[in-house]
């Protein structure tokens, strides 16, 4: 768990920062981005194990970001967050290669579990 690196992307700063802090308290390294563009920029510098991506964002939408990420870094696992709780959005994300999706508000334990299994999948694939 100590060497997990996660990039959190959401336009709701309070949400992202708080979530980052909580994950940090559990020993998970986090990076944060508040929109798609800056998230992609951060990925150029360093690639985390998992990206937690909100689907509803102003500017570049979550699905577009997902598409780009999967193109550029096919091995990176992406967990989607969706505020609207719509299965169809989640499902179309899954079709684009997302690992899983969670509905907001989320439970931290569930998120950590998902991150863990995503990393496990990534490492076994390697």
């Amino acid at each position, binding site marked *: 768990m100590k060497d997990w690196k996660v990039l959190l992307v959401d336009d709701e700063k309070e949400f992202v920062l708080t979530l980052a802090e909580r994950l940090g308290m559990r020993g998970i390294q986090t990076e944060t981005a508040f929109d798609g563009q800056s998230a992609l920029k951060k990925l150029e510098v360093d690639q985390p194990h998992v990206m937690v991506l909100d689907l509803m964002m102003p500017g570049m939408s979550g699905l577009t970001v997902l598409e780009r990420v999967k193109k550029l870094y096919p091995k990176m696992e992406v967990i989607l967050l969706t505020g609207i709780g719509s299965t169809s959005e989640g499902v179309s994300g899954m079709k684009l290669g997302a690992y899983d999706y969670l509905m907001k*508000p989320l439970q931290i334990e569930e998120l950590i579990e998902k991150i863990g299994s995503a990393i496990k999948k990534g490492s076994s694939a390697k």
Partner: protein
Amino acid sequence: MRSLKDILSQLLEIPDEGTTPERYRIVRRNIAVLMLMITLIPLAMMTVINFYEYRAALRNEILTPMKALVNKAKHSFELFLASRLSTVNFIASAYTYDELADEKNLNRIFKVLKKEFEGFVDLGLIDSKGTQISYAGPYELQGKNYALQTWFEQVKVNGVHISDVFKGYRKFPHVAIAVQHISDSGKVWIVRATINTAKFDDLISSMGLDAESDAFLINRHGVFQTKSKFYGEVLDQCPVVPTKSFEPTVIEKIDPLGRDVFLSYAYFNQTDLVFMLIKPRSQVMKAWYTLSADLLMVLVIGVIVIIVVVLKLTGLMIQRMKESDDKRALALREVEHTHKLSSIGRLAAGVAHEVNNPLAVINEKAGLMKDVIEFTPDFPDKDRFLNLVRAIIQSVERCRSITHRLLGFARRMDVEVQVLDVNDVIKETLGFLEKEALYKNIQINLELPPDLPKIASDRGQLQQVFLNILNNALAAMGDGGTVAISSFERDSQMIGVTIRDTGHGMSEETLKHVFEPFFTTKKAGQGTGLGLSITYGIVKRLGGDIEVQSRVGRGTRFTVYLPKKTESEPGT
């Protein structure tokens, strides 16, 4: 005073307003009156026209034979009189005065006469002074002088004379025929013969009249010349003397016996006689009475049939109209309801969206607080703060479930159709609830025939439908009870699923609102009041229908009908 046009326009108007039963009553009355008018008026007119036409036609048909009979009888009489007259004339011309004056000779002539022509009673020769010169016959009339009698004067002037009927010396009816002859030498004599009127009676009886009818001769003064069956003897005065007409004429009269009669008569051309034929109207018009009774019967039956048919027909029409109006009203209500649902759905989605993000923030902040408290070893009042934070997180959790339900309500627009077995869907759904049922000691009875046709529908949404209904069923029951689920094929188009519980049931008032959004009987915080509204929306969306029956204390029965083939609208 209203004009006919006003009345008609009022009848043709179908009121849109007014209370419904009143409106139907007016429409029915107007249609009935119109229909009766356009059927009964022509019928009545036809009947009246027929009545008069037939009567005129039939009258002619009846009266013509009467006239013909009179004409024939008149000719018979005239022929009879003419033949007797010419016979007497022949005798006067063929014999000399001396031959006729010789009693022996005259008797011989009279004998031949009686043999050849019936009816002659006597024959006599009278000189120009009116003295009976010779006589052949049953009476002693020799030497009698007729100079002062009117017939003698007339025969001197006209040359011939046919007398009225008289009884004279002989005391039974006779007619005298007298002919004056002037010889070449200028000598004048008169031959006079008497004939009895038995021949008249023979002629009348040969007409073959029925018992009710009468025929007789009168003279121009109305004195009976032959006996009448009803009105008098010979030489009595006849009560009626019709106006002069040589052509057979028919008039209607009330006779002295009080009978309504047809009187047919004709004046004789040569003599002072009138032939009269009387027939009772009732007898003559018998055919007409039968016909008019038939006509009346047809009219009455026609009117009754028309009235019955019109009333039945308008009743039926109004019934149909009412039904279609009701259907329309129902459809309108349904559209309204669906509309209400969809706008509430949109609103709910909006609210859920907006609320979800701040909720996520609250959730994370509270989570962080919890983390901080937990991770700090000697946090003051640790337990108390932890409880507070936990309460916040629990409340967020509750909000989350509400927003998810709201979103589910909005989401019902998306339909993903596949061919599926409804029995499987029911079993899957039951999987979610088995534990709760077990815990509440509720027995679940399934009656799912394996040969139920597969249908094209949305699995997820059907699950939600059954889940909502079953949730309500379980919630309606305390400890123990039975939920019975059965599926069946309703017809070639639809299948049905019935879910019956033995719970506390619903009141009529609750039933009315059961599918309305945010209507709930649960305690505040326990239900959103969206479950059955969502269910209703989904079922309608899938092209099906849902019915609910309930009795307080007895339980509730939901029946969901689903089409075998969905023609769902695309999601919005």
